[in-house]
């Protein structure tokens, strides 16, 4: 049994984008705050902090989930993938990121990291989605800049692109 009492600080280790990292956390620290403040990985954004806006979405053991609805202590020993792990290098965006750039699927970029993480999971499980399915997943994110039109185009094109060749979107996996 693992117990972390009120006020106690414990060492948390997890596999972040393929590398084992660790940091300090209290029992009530959210995974978002652990990633950003403790590990310095600020690509994951914090919006509503109650699971509605979607901008803190990361992949936990490959599965897209809200990092604001998870405690850092729950992520101990798990695999966590964030937006930082998507591109192989600064000059080598993955198919989804390239399509986002091409179709202006972002403006201010606040929601973007979460949307990329949702679809990197969704498209790996559903390589050939129709527009309604994509819209349903996109419904779990709020974007106040694009009107979603560029996002739809980018995601549909990235899916087609990824079907045509070996998926390069999986980041650290």
């Amino acid at each position, binding site marked *: 049994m693992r117990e972390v009492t009120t006020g106690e600080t414990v060492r948390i280790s997890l596999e972040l984008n393929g590398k084992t990292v660790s940091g300090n956390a209290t029992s009530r620290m959210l995974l978002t705050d652990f990633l950003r403040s403790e590990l310095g990985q600020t690509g994951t954004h914090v919006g509503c902090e*109650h699971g509605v806006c979607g901008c803190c979405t990361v992949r936990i053991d490959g599965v897209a989930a809200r990092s604001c609805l998870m405690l850092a202590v729950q992520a101990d020993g798990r695999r966590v993938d964030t937006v930082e792990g998507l591109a192989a290098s600064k000059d080598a965006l993955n198919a989804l990121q390239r399509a986002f750039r091409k179709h202006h699927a972002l403006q201010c970029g606040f929601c973007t990291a979460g949307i990329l993480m949702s679809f990197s999971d*969704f498209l790996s499980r559903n390589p050939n989605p129709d527009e309604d399915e994509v819209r*349903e*997943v996109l419904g779990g994110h709020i974007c106040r800049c694009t009107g979603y039109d560029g996002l739809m185009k980018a995601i549909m094109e990235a899916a087609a692109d990824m079907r045509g060749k070996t998926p390069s979107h999986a980041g650290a996996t």
Partner: protein
Amino acid sequence: MKPAPFTYIRPDTLDEAVTALAQHGADARVLAGGQSLMAMLNLRLVEPKALIDISRLGELRSIRLDGDMIEVGAAVTQAEFLAWPQLKEKAPFIARALPWVGHFQTRNRGTVCGSIAHADPSSELPLSLALLEGEVVLRSKSGTRRLKASEFQTGMLQTARRDDEMVIAVRFPAGVGLKGAAFREVARRHGDFAIVSVGAVSAEKGAVRVGVGGVAEKPACISIGASMSTPDITDRIERLAWELGGHDDIHASARYRRDLVRRMVPTLIGEVRACAK
């Protein structure tokens, strides 16, 4: 906002979990997927002294057929249940309703049992359990008991669970709705809380069982007999709409909710009856 301080407890076995719950009782909350509870903690709507995390308990991770019941363990996520290969053939109604639960991203972590234990009046899973007349399995140090859906949920976010008990599984009757199952929901956008949700399944002797969520404090179900005339059905639905009452909130007025009941219920009865033929 951030949660108020609490002690985090992650038991390795179910026995440890119920022991911890017996110790902390009403001061503790059981955490599984956290898709409702974590939001409530962040908003400080709840401030428990202890959180008991059951999400890694292997004992609670299975979906299995037990005779004519489908038993879903408390750590099974909504996404896992949706991907269960036998879902469409054993529980066609749930196969229709489950995609409406939250979003893709929240179904990935949110659990089937957690949604039922949370007992939100507009949630699809409590409605499914009530409509299919399923059961909730509760475990405490003193033993295990099963409650019918109608006995378990007592009101808005209220259940008959005792402070030292946790939901360890829910049980849905297998094969209900094979001759017709329909689900419809009105919300501002897909994934938002339902303003009104309606489910209907074929029942014995050509009857149709109908459940309505989102209007009253908890899901309400009625049975429409095969021989009921159209005017009688209209009367019954009218009575149901007034019995449910409904409430005014930011999403809709009580009057609008009643009107949705009047419009949606007959459509779903028609769909189920058409399938049964």
